[in-house]
């Protein structure tokens, strides 16, 4: 379960000055049950990435209470936070692939951090690469891959360790329509297997095509929550 109660976020060096605008998120409250799916929609700069960062423990709120997978985020040790992060798969808006590693090693990273044995790593990574259609490109470095291929590697890395919660920030941004729908197919498949999913997007076409409960955000405020 993901639960926000009156959550406020203020960046230490806010991009926009002024009293009312200083907070990136203001009074956010919502709840996503285990196995749920949510679109997170809103115009650029609304605070979608900021909200996702709070979910995947990359920022701390200045106020409010956040509960992720049954754990209250403010109350855990650094070690437990790291262990909790391993249960959350994240597709970053800018992918964040490691340039010095091959596609295979990038995808293997979460499993190796969790100290899985190499046989298991090999089995799962090859399977997931086949799933995103990149099994032939496993020795390619990120700079040898197209934007769409990099995005699929980023998605493979996010799901390879079978996270309980998947968070994707504009995951279709670099994909053509065909690839985007293919990707959504993968994500909904995971969701049907029990993973809780939050996908941020400003692609209204995609939202129409895959109807699901929505969290709408504007100027840091939640304007609609299913």
């Amino acid at each position: 379960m993901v639960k926000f109660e009156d959550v406020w976020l203020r960046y230490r060096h806010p991009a926009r000055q002024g009293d009312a605008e200083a907070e990136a998120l203001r009074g956010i409250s919502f709840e996503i049950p285990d196995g749920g799916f949510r679109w997170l929609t809103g115009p650029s700069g609304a605070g979608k990435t900021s909200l996702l960062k709070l979910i995947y423990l990359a920022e701390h709120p200045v106020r409010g209470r956040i509960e992720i997978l049954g754990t209250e985020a403010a109350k855990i040790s650094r070690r437990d936070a790291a262990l909790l992060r391993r249960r959350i798969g994240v597709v970053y808006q800018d992918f964040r692939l490691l340039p010095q590693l091959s596609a295979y090693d990038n995808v293997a990273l979460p499993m190796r951090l969790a100290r899985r044995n190499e046989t298991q790593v090999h089995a799962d990574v090859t399977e997931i690469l086949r799933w995103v259609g990149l099994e032939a490109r496993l020795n390619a470095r990120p700079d040898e891959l197209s934007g769409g291929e990099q995005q699929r590697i980023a998605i493979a890395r996010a799901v390879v360790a079978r996270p309980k919660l998947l968070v994707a920030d504009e995951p279709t941004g670099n994909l053509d329509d065909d690839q985007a729908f293919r990707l959504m197919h993968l994500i909904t498949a995971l969701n049907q297997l029990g993973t809780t999913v939050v996908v941020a997007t400003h692609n209204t076409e995609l939202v129409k095509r895959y109807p699901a409960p929505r969290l709408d955000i504007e100027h840091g405020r939640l304007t609609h929550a299913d």
Partner: protein
Amino acid sequence: MRTEPRHRADYLGLREALGDRLLPVLVAAMSFLAALAMAGALASATLAARWQQDATAQLTIQVPQPQAPSADGKTPRLAAVLAALQAMPDVASPQEMSPQSVSALISPWLGADPAALGLALPGVISAHWTGATPPDALGPALAKLSPGTLVQTGALWAGRVAALTTSLQGCAAAVLIIVALVAAAVVAVATRSGLAQRRETVTLIYALGALDGDIAARFAARITLLTFAGAAAGAVLALPVLAWLAALAAPFAGPAQIADSYNLPPALLIALPGLPVVAAGIGWGTAQLTVRGWLRNLP
């Protein structure tokens, strides 16, 4: 055809980020200095021990009015004192210094012919003390035979040599501490530069759930390797220099050791291999602290 993955174990790319040749070179220089400081401290202690022995053992006995009759009234004082010294088991080779050598000894102060000044020169006997305890009772015993007899030992010099040795060892300890601190600073700077170069990688694997300890251990392992190698190189480079210094010092260390110009103090031969180990320890600890401190700033 199936494509087989080629695995890269160094996934932080630390071989490049900490591939800097400056760190091992600086650590080698520190280790070289540490080796010299240790050798200096050990050598001064060894030489001082010898000199101290010699100096305490040297006895100079001054007998005023050497020709006046001694306490027994028969023999002259100088002869009586000499005979008494010869009879003592703890005194070796007592020898009367000829009036010429006494004159020669004091001529810088009193001119070529002190006798011409009408001064009564004392008789002087040199001897070696072989007793285990200091010859404190010797003076009073001789003074009974011949009033005013003075016994001088090298104790004053021995004390000065001891003080000098202590300060030399203090300096060496200070050098070692400073060298260790500089080495730690060099490691901290190299680690921070490695973190800065791998900032994106480190923050990513942190976000993927790497423990602080895991990340710190990877940096520390690499740093430990570099500092160990650097310090080992420094210690090896110091060896010929130390052997050369040992050869120079050999004549002062006593005749038994002149023959072998390679002899280094055994304590040094034990301490030198310790240098890379200590350097690696400093590297490991500093890297751990630096990385963990840096990670604490991440959310």
